[in-house]
């Protein structure tokens, strides 16, 4: 069975998504964009059909044959469309069909709205096939919750005309709730606040046992982001007129630039407090070019669009009243549509419902994502229904290594089940036991993290430091149970511990710990580097002493003395309580270079002697290739 894609067939833009391996993602169209304008055009010579961005690009040149907002017409009766005035707002010809429905003049013929929507769906299908590299024949399409049977049937027919078997038509708010996995939880009431480019919808849903019931819907079919942009443009135009006495509305090129700048500023002010509208050479008069430069703050924006945001709460109140529920009974609020990124919108929704709305999923894509999840469930991909059960590790899991350093094994936010194995070694010669100290947290030093457990691995055969290989494995199963085991590779001795509460932390606890780690990150890093500098120096001194001892017959006294002196100087540096890490590092480097020089000189001397010996012998040396054992992890247990 192929993939069942999810399609959010929007009034202004459409979006499609699919679920792979239980993880839904948006499908980009042929032009590389994540959304596609729901616009179809027939070129003036009636020769070519354009769909999406190219249809939008030629809109002003060909208004009578550019079809947009078709969703306002699909499956509707002529008298409904006429009474709401939608037919008069549209620049293309619309008339009553023989059956009492609506049809639009498309070239020389008349088409039902679903036939026009089908052209958008056909492009989405073709782009999805190019993206996925396989044929797509099935889809789940979303519609507004208020769509009646006839509108749903017409949408389904549009899919059929486009060559898609519509496996299910689902409500847009339901899809949004699915994207947040809200179907997985207990029975509850949720509100879906959807403020898009051109329309506002509010839906009150009841969820229970994975079944969604629409309790009520309301909205404003002509309120959206475009109205917000218009309010900004009006303000800029009026201001410019006052200052320069030039009406930019009469200059289409200037107006186009203003529209882009207004939208950009609106988006910027969602994340910053202040921006600047900077449009050099916006227009010109007899006195020369004119520029527009204006500071624009979030407060200015909120003053301009405050009424528009307030306007959304009337339908919200009506929807709650129709559903017969009080706003305090709403347990989850889901935000849909690009305009819900605006802090003022989120703030007022939060104030109204008294709780933080869900915002994690891109509000432009959340409906398509939900549709894709539904599609994957219908295709029998059980991984999708399980996916929200796949937890993540809330904090990093690791163990204590030499010098009290925390060495991470499983980073925070890793999806479980997972496992990680790393080989450690001993810190001292003839060390026969190692302690495995299991830690949870984000801090660099072991002492600053939470101890989850500790155990000893004993019976390691005596050997020089760094030689034993102790393999430590961290395994977390799907239930968050952590099993830590340590095994000495040489003796096969093994010990383990099972920790059950590695993922049971509430969000505030996790946030506080992560915040603390971020605040102390620089201090922790310095501490860690300081200790590492000492460990490296100690290790070098041991190496040097071993070298001197093993080569005592081959090194001359001057070399031995030089090496010993260097080692003593280094020891003296790091032995002080308040040792200077930079000085230790510098000296370590110096001693390391000296040791290498002496080693190289000794090898050169040895090679000379071998050469002398070989001159008297014709036998070929029997060279055996040696195996170089890569050093283990630099962290030594």
């Amino acid at each position, binding site marked *: 069975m192929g993939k069942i894609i999810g399609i959010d067939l929007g009034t202004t833009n459409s979006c499609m998504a699919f679920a792979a*391996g239980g993880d839904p993602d948006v499908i980009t169209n042929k032009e590389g964009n994540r959304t596609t304008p729901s616009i179809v055009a027939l070129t003036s010579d009636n020769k070519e059909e354009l769909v999406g961005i190219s249809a939008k690009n030629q809109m002003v040149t060909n208004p009578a044959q550019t079809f947009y907002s078709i969703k306002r017409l699909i499956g509707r009766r002529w008298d409904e469309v006429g009474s709401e005035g939608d037919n008069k707002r549209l620049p293309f010809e619309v008339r009553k069909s023989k059956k009492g429905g609506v049809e639009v003049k498309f070239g020389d013929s008349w088409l039902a709205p679903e036939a026009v929507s089908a052209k958008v769906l056909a492009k989405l299908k073709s782009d999805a096939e190019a993206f996925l590299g396989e044929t797509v024949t099935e889809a789940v399409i979303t519609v507004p919750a208020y769509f009646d049977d006839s509108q749903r049937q017409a949408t389904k027919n549009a899919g059929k005309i486009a060559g898609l078997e519509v496996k299910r038509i689902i409500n847009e708010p339901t899809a949004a709730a699915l994207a947040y996995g809200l179907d997985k939880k207990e029975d509850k009431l949720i509100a879906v606040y959807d403020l898009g480019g051109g329309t506002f919808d509010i839906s009150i849903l009841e969820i229970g046992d994975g079944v969604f019931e629409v309790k009520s819907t309301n909205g404003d079919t002509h309120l959206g982001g475009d109205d917000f942009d218009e309010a900004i443009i009006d303000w800029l135009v009026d201001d410019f007129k006052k200052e320069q006495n030039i009406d930019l509305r009469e200059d289409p090129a200037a107006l186009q630039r203003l529209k882009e700048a207004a939208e950009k500023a609106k988006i910027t002010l969602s994340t910053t407090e202040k921006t600047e509208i900077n449009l050099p050479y916006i227009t010109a008069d007899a006195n020369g070019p004119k520029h527009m430069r204006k500071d624009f703050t979030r407060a200015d924006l909120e003053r301009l669009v405050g009424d528009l945001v307030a306007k959304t709460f009337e339908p919200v109140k009506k929807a709650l009243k129709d559903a017969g529920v009080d706003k305090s009974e709403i347990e989850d609020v889901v935000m849909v549509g690009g305009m819900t990124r605006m802090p003022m919108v989120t703030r007022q929704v939060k104030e109204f419902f008294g709780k933080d709305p869900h915002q994690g999923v891109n509000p432009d894509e959340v409906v398509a994502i939900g549709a894709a999840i539904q599609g994957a469930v219908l295709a029998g991909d059980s991984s999708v229904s399980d996916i929200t059960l796949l937890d993540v590790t809330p904090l990093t899991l690791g163990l204590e290594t030499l010098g009290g350093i925390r060495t991470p094994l499983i980073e925070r936010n*890793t999806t479980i089940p997972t496992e990680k194995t790393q080989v450690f070694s001993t810190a001292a010669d003839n060390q026969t036991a190692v302690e495995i100290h299991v830690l949870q947290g984000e801090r660099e030093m072991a002492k600053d993290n939470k101890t989850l457990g500790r155990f000893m691995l004993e019976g390691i055969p005596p050997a020089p430091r760094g030689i034993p290989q102790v393999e430590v494995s961290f395994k977390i199963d*799907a239930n968050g149970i952590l099993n830590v085991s340590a095994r000495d590779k040489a003796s096969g001795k093994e010990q383990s511990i099972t920790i059950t509460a590695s993922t049971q932390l509430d969000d505030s606890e996790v946030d506080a710990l992560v915040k603390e780690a971020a605040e102390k990150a620089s201090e922790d890093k310095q501490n860690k580097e300081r200790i590492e500098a000492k460990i490296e120096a100690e290790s070098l001194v041991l190496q040097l002493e071993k070298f001197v001892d093993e080569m005592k017959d081959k090194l001359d006294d001057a070399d031995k003395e030089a090496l010993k002196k260097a080692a003593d100087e280094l020891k003296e540096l790091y032995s002080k309580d308040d040792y200077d890490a930079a000085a230790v590092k510098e000296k370590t480097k110096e001693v390391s270079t000296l040791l290498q020089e002496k080693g190289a000189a000794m090898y050169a001397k040895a090679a000379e002697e071998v050469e002398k010996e070989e001159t008297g012998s014709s036998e070929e040396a029997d060279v055996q290739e040696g195996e170089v054992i890569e050093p283990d992890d630099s962290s030594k247990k």
Partner: protein
Amino acid sequence: MATDTQSDSSNVRDDTVTDQSNDRISELQSQLEQANEAKLRALADFQNYRKRMDAERAAMKEQANSMLMHSLADIIDDYYRSVKHSGKDAGPEKQLDGLSMVFEKLEGVLKDIGLEVIEVNEGDRFDPETMEAITTMPAHSEKEDNTVMHVESKGYKKSNGTVFRTAKVVTARYQS
């Protein structure tokens, strides 16, 4: 007795069948558990892989941005120079020359990052794939219909041929 014996043997057979079935059930249950565990593991691995890829992508983006920032900083220096020298001894022609050079350099940077100017000239046929009509003006003849009258801003395409930004144009519209 015969009946009893038969019954006994059938009980024995039943017990054997039950034992075999139970063994088989246990075996299948264990297989199912293993398969389920493997599936969850594969899914978790996939999600972790995606997280890793996202992190790598973010790092690559950061690196690409740094390269672009270096090039732009260079151009901003040139621009400051041109502002500094404007209105001095250099005549308008020299200043224009300088500005043209800065502009060429900027176009070079865009080319380096894979952006190319979409060549659009007045009189070209309007192409909705690469151009966006911001308004129309009356055409003088039918032949002029749907052609570019004026280029308001340049368009750019990426090296893979996809349009990064359409050219904003004013088109001619013929009404008989």
